[in-house]
Every structure is written in structure tokens, then in C-alpha cells.
């Protein structure tokens, strides 16, 4: 039996795909040496933001915890000490914990947040060797007063802490009063380290038509 008989004409047809691909551009990347550009609304690790003056944005309202479908957020509020307030207003987030093992990164907490305190970033490298380490507390979630993010692990070839500075700005694209005519006008306060984030493509920044 000859070679041609063994593989048949179908064999050539099948390998044609393989041979053709040899000459096309590769889509795989050499992760982690080479990282992919992630979409702007990537659902990575959360951060708790501060205002530009260093005040915490979180008011401990627990709306994130209430909306969370995975029940992975635990928040408790407390009275703001009047002489040394943590956040503007009467109340601040005293305890803030996210169990990253339970989190499904759906982003509903970000949508629910009335003060843009919680946003999602581009960092997703969060593997841990102890379940306890997967529960992120305010120590890891809250950014420093200058906007520098914290993380449970040091920067390394896998972990690029700069990715924690990349959060999106779409979450307040509607007016606070909910009036349809205002829809699309970005309205959100600035954050420490990032200032007022620019609107996305398609969002209006000046109140005019898109």
C-alpha cells in the first residue's frame, strides 16, 4: 500500500488549513512577558477610590453588598468622627471586605455605588495559596490618599500594579435625577490620583448632542 493510499485525498485537504495558518499573523501572546490591551470596561479587581482631597468615597451604604448576586461583599458603616472625618457626610465604610473566591466580577456593585467609591480595574492576577488571603479588606482595596493602589502581593512579572490605576468612567453616564433628557451626560466626581476621568466615546461631556 502506497503513502497516497494511506492518507488519501482528504488528508491533503485537511492539512491545507494547517499550512495556510503557518503564514498568517499569530493571535497568541507570550503571557506574561507580553500582555494584551484590555477593553476599557474590563471587569478586573475592585478598588475603593478616594476623592481628590484624600477623603474616602465609600459611605458604607451597603448597596453593593445588597445587590451582589454572589453575596461576597461585607460592609458595615459607622458614624464619621466629626473632628477627623473619614468621608464627607455622616457615615463611612468602617468595614469593607470582598471575598474574591466568591466574586463573579459582574460589576453590579459598581453600578449600585452612589458615590463611585468602588470601581473595577484591569488587574486580574489574584491567585492565592490560602483561602483567607482571597478575602480583600480595606487594606488592599482602598487606595492611598494620593491615589496609589494597594495590593495583597508585591509587583512582579505577573502583577502590574499600574493596572490597578486603570478603571473606567462609564458608571455615572446618566443624570442623578434620572431624567431621560439628561441621559448620556457624564457626571462623576474626581478621584485621587486620576482626577475627573474623561467620558468614553459616545458619552457627552458638554451636555450637547452626541
Amino acid at each position: 500500500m502506497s503513502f497516497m493510499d494511506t492518507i488519501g485525498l482528504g488528508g491533503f485537504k485537511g492539512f491545507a488549513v494547517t499550512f495556510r495558518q503557518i503564514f498568517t499573523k499569530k493571535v497568541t501572546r507570550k503571557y506574561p512577558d507580553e500582555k494584551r490591551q484590555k477593553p476599557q470596561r474590563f471587569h478586573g479587581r475592585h478598588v475603593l477610590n478616594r476623592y481628590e482631597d484624600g477623603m474616602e468615597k465609600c459611605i458604607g451604604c451597603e448597596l453593593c453588598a445588597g445587590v451582589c448576586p454572589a453575596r461576597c461583599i461585607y460592609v458595615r458603616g459607622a458614624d464619621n468622627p466629626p473632628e477627623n472625618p473619614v468621608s464627607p457626610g455622616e457615615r463611612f465604610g468602617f468595614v469593607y471586605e470582598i471575598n474574591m473566591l466568591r466574586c463573579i466580577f459582574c460589576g453590579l456593585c459598581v453600578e449600585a455605588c452612589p458615590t463611585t467609591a468602588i470601581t473595577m480595574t484591569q488587574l486580574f492576577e489574584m491567585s492565592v495559596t490560602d483561602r483567607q488571603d482571597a478575602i480583600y479588606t480595606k487594606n488592599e482595596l482602598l487606595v492611598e490618599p494620593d491615589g496609589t493602589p494597594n495590593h495583597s502581593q508585591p509587583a512582579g512579572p505577573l502583577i502590574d500594579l499600574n493596572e490597578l490605576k486603570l478603571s473606567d468612567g462609564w458608571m455615572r453616564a446618566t443624570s442623578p435625577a434620572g431624567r431621560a433628557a439628561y441621559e448620556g451626560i457624564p457626571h462623576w466626581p474626581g478621584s485621587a490620583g486620576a482626577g475627573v476621568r474623561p467620558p468614553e466615546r459616545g458619552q457627552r461631556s458638554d451636555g450637547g448632542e452626541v
Partner: protein
Amino acid sequence: MADTPQPELVTITLNGVDTEVRKGQLLIDAAEQAGTYIPRFCYQNRLKPVGLCRMCLVEVEGPRGTALVPSCTQPCTEGLVVDSENAVVHKAQEGVLEFLLLNHPLDCPVCDKGGECPLQDHTVAYGPGESRFVEEKRHYEKPIEISDLVLLDRERCILCARCTRFCDEISGDSLIEFVDRGNGTQILTFFDEPFASYFSGNTVQICPVGALTAKPYRFRARPWDLEAIESISMVDSVGSKVSVQTSQNQVLRINGVDSDTTNHGWLSDKDRFTLQAIHSEDRLRVPLVRKDGELVEASWGEALELVAERLGSVRGDEVAGLGAARSTNEEAYTFAKFLRSVVVTPHMDAQLDDALSDEFLAATLNRAEINDLETAGTILVWAGDLKEELPVLYLRVRRAATILGATLIVIHPRRTGLSDVADHVFTYRPGEGADTLRRLKAGDGPFAEARQALDSGPVMTIVGRTGGAEDPRLAESVAAFARTLPDAAIMPLARRANVYGALDMGVSADLLPGRVSVRDTEGRTALEDAWGPLPEGRGKHATEILQGLKSGDLKALITLGADPVGNHPQPALAGEAVESAEFVVSLDTLLNATSARADVVLPVAGFGESEGTATNLEGRVQKLNRIIPPPGQARTTWSVLDDLARRMGATLGAHDAETIMKEIASIAPAYAGIDWALLDWGEGRDGVVLPGPDGTQPLQHMPVETSVTATTGRFTLHLGRVLYDNADVVRNSPSLDVLVQPASAAFHPRDLAVLAVQPGDSVRLAGDYGTVELAVRADESLAEGTVYVQANMDNSRALGASLIVQVDAVRGEGS
């Protein structure tokens, strides 16, 4: 109780459907009963309607066409045609909500009400969705403290007047009011007068927005965190229905639940805020055993083994038990059964000889229910100051006197919370009560009108000891007189939460379970069939127990949630008794003056931590529910006693609380037919009133009149209770502890002059049981020759309760 007449019915047309409703009923209520909810803010079913908020507007057809009327002020009449859901009504509702939201801040995320807020809910359900108002909202200073317990945020207030109406109509503490006009209208307290009401927590509960918030609950949780269960308050014996709300196994809030039979939804701040004591750092978490004079932590096995050995080493009738007045019926029953059938002793008392006799409390004839107040023509209150001792009962009596128009007669040694609304107020010198009663009976002089009022029934008499030093036989004499009045109903008062239940369970020297006298041979035989041989005869009462321990007749003492050293009228005797007892074991939730001296302390589950039933002051059995686990290694009382019995070679058969209730129902005559399913799900959801003493019940107590001889002494003592005293439960509730005022000695101004002291000076009071030094105060409502001292205070406790006291001014240096 008198039968309520059949209400007259009329037919109204509600949204096109003919509905039969009670004539004169408010439209808003009638519609709700028919299944149509009309949104409202100012209307509250226990307050008089005012029609302030305009949220409940409905369209009603009248002779001149249709008109929008507030349904909370519209009584139902025959042929009324109502539309609550058409476009006109919706437009009105949208308008009202848009208007209310002009000034209401949108700080819902930080507001305690957010998530359970009627304004939020109605805005979603009936609101316009957006506002045309672009101007700046009204601003006030964010929350101002109007009392030590309540914060007011005037920006959030929608001026519905629920809080002010509650204070005016229900509690009588008119301490908050509207001030200013127009856009500046706001709720405020009066100058320099805080909103210091015993009922301030109710205004927080009924506030339809987050304008009034309670400090102890402030920012502790959000409504969707909370798990709730219905239970009853174990702060006093009214048995108020409450909703116990927890998060993460912490009781964070207690709210009143509207119960027609007991509290009408209201609570005292003590009911509401002593929840802090549940999670006190001082809660007992592990068994403690005394070693080398110190209480040290031990294992349950070690502690119980020691108790079993020590109790086994003395004769049964050398052991006595005190307490169970704050336990559930199931726990009290197990306690009584343990003492009578395992230890075999007749000596036990649920009270500390500080209220009325056991038989009088358990089985007095013509026993009243709280709801008899609704139909009473005349109410005679000859008891402690209800506002201080049983605040929710005070609200019910006040309602009867003010809203329902009953004639109220109050007799007490001083001015009480009810004096303002009473038609006849009499004060007398403690010790001269018998004489006062004789004059009342005769209608002598100033008593003539009151005597006349007592002839028009139904007459409800609330009778108790006016003070710790008063002879308990006076209350019985009053009850004996009250029985002769038309349609008499008598409510004998004791204060501790489940003291009536504990007596019914047989934690008494005179009573066996189910209101059976120990002298009743038939009842005793029936009980012996179930429990085995019982100790002979009548047991010792609390004072006799303490005397027995002191003299050595008794060797060992078991306390269950009782503190004789801190609470007995003779503190020195109690202290010596506990010191000289060979062995003292305390089952308790907190370390108190007695358990701190005990040899073994066993931590038990408290309120919210154990399931069971309790019997209130009208004999109503209600269900207590469990929602959190007990702290540390604490266990339920019945399981501790069951374990102890097993180690002493006996068996109690207490496997779970529900089984114990079944056993009670089969053994205790008055409790036949009571079971948890009935109280949880059946007709007994508002509790079941036990049958009063009649032909079917073994025990009837006929109050007897005793001629109490008048006392002769320069000063007689009125030892009256105040709501916030130095009780352990208050001490462990930081929010209430700050409200406690130290005791003082109050005299009539003329007595002050005779003693040559000024208010603020000190006097030394010396009674039969102890001596204290207190600051002096003037009180014009007292009779001359009376000294009024607040009971159960750290600085007055040592005085004890002797009727006659010697008063000497203390002359400090330089005065």
C-alpha cells in the same frame, strides 16, 4: 369582658366594586381591609387622623360632583362612591410626592431608613420619577441630638406630625413641637428641655422618613441585612409584642409589633434598648467555679459534677431555690421540677418578697385583662407608678382615661405619671394606706366624688404595692374592696417579666404547677403520679429562705436569674445569707451581686437565645422565639438542669423546650390545651389567656381585707421604682446607663424646713435594715412625714425597705 355590640355595616363603592364596611370607619382603613392600599404618610392607625400629608387623596363623588378628599379623615357612609386609582388621583399623588421631595435630601444611602422608607417606596410606586425643582434645597444642621437616645435630621422631615401626635396623644410627654412657619417649619424641642421621654423610641419607629433616628441603632445595619423574628419583650410583665431584628448573630434592633391585646405597637425605651445587654462584654460565656476564693473558668463537666456532688451531700430540704421570674415557662417548670422531684425540697420562690403574695398574683378572683381598660367606666390605680414600673401598661391606662373617657382614680404616695390625666388623685403617707382605703370606702370628704365614680362600672382596679416598704396586705385589702364594685375586674401587679409564669409553673412555696395549692391533696396526688414523691408541706418564702441560710437550717441555694443580694428588701440579710450558705450555685446571664459570691456560676441562654413561652400580667401565654445562639458555652436553662439531674441519678425528661410545654399542658390544669403550634400558627398568635379561677380551676384566691395598723414614726419611707435604675440589664446597656440618676431623698418642703436642710444638702436615713446618706430634694406632691427614695439604686440599696426611717441632717464642715 363585656361583649362588643355588632357594628353597623354600610355599603361603599370602591373602585367600582361594592364593599361592605363598618359605618363610620375611616375610608383609608376600610379600603385596606378590602385589599386596596392607599398610600399615606401622616396617618397611623393608633393616632388620630389629621389629614396633613395629602398623600391619601382619593376621588369621592359628592352632591356637587367628584372631589379629591383625604381618605384618612373621610368616614364611610352608605353609598359612598370612591375611586382611588384613576388618573386624577394618580396626578394628585405624583404632585404630593414631587412636592415632598422638593426639600427632602436624597441622602438615602447614608440614611438609616433607606430600604424600609415609606417615602422611598411610595416614590417608586406612585411618584413622578423626576422633579422640576432645580433650586437649592432647604438646609439645616445635620442631625441634632434632641435626647440622649434620639437624633433629629430636620432636612429629612416631611412634617407629618406623627411624632408630635404620639407625644401629645399617646405618651403625654409633649416635648417636641412644630416651630416657625412656611418653608421654615420644623420639629424642635423646647429650649433647654431635651426630648427625655421613656417612649422616645416609638417616634423613631413611626417616623415615615429618616428624620428621627435612634442612637443605639444608628448605622449599625441596613434593613436588608436584618433577619427578624416575632417575640415578646422580657423587660416587664406586660408581654409587649416585639420584632427582634438581628444581623450576623447580633440583635441590633427591637421594634414594637402592633398587638390589639397588649402593646398596640408601642414599647418603652427600656424594652427597646436593653438589647445592648444581650451582647454585653460581661455576659457569662463559660462556667465558673470558685477555687481558692476566686471564680475561675471551668468545663461544664467539672462544674456540673461539682454541683451534683455538693447538692447530693446535703439533705433535700436543706436546699432552696430562688428565681425563674425572668425565665421562660419551660425553664421555670424544669426548675420547679428539678427542685421538687430531684433535690426534693419545698423551698423555692420566684419573687423576692417585694411584690404581692403568690396566690394573689396567680389566682385572684375577677382577674382582669388589659383590654378590660377599653370598656372600663372607672379605673382605680392603687399601685406603683405605672409610668416607671410598667410603662406600656401606663400607655394603655392613659389611653383609656384620655381617648376613651374612663374616669381615672390614682392613689399613690406621690405624684405619678398618670396624675395629669387622672380625674381624682389622692396622695397619702406610706403606712396610712389602710386609713386612706377606709375613707375611700366611706366616700369621706374629698373621696366623695371618687367613691361615686366607683359605683358606675365596669370598674377596673389595678392594684399593687406602691413602694417596696409598703405592707403587701394593703393591696389585698384594696382588691377585696374592688371586688365589691360593679363589674369588677382586678389586675394584681408584679413587675418581673415572667413572674406570673414562674408562679404558674410552681416556683413557689405555696403553689404547684398549674395554679394548684400545695395544700390541695388531690392536686398533689395527681402531680405525684407524674413526678414521683414530693416533699411534704408548704415551703419557705424568699425571706424565710434567706433567714434559714443565715441560721444554718438551709445549707445550699440555687438561683436562676435572681439577685437576692441586690434586690431583696433586706440587703444585709441577703448578703449574710449568701455568705453563710455552704454552697451557692447561680444560673445567670450576667454576674450580679449574688452570683459574684456564688461557688459555681453556670452561664445560661437569655432573651432571643432560647425558645419558649411566657405568661404576662393578665395570664396571657405568648411565644418567645430564638434568633441567635447563646454566647460562648452558655446553654439553655432546661438543658443545664436536665444534665444536672442526670448526674444526680434522676431524670427530668427535658429533651427540648417544646416537649416540656407538652408535659406542662398535660400536668398543669390551667395550661391544658396550650401548645407551641397554637401560639405560633393558630388562633393564639396574640397569645392565649389562661382560664381565670372558676369552677374548672383548682385554685381561687379571695382577696381578704386585713386591718393594717397605722405606723407611728417621724418619717415613713416611700421606696418607689424608677424605670432607669441600677439593674444589671440597664448597667449593661450603655445607651440607658447614662440616663440613670442617682437616688435622692425627697421631702415635702415643710419637712425640709423642719429638718433645716436645703435641697442639695445631705441627710442620713437609718431604717431597720440599713443606713444610707442621700442628697435632699423637695417634692411638693408628698405628704408631710414622707421620705421618697428611688429603689434599686447603688446609693440607696443599702437602706432596704423598712417603713419607718430615722432622718438626720448631715452637717458637713463649714456648714
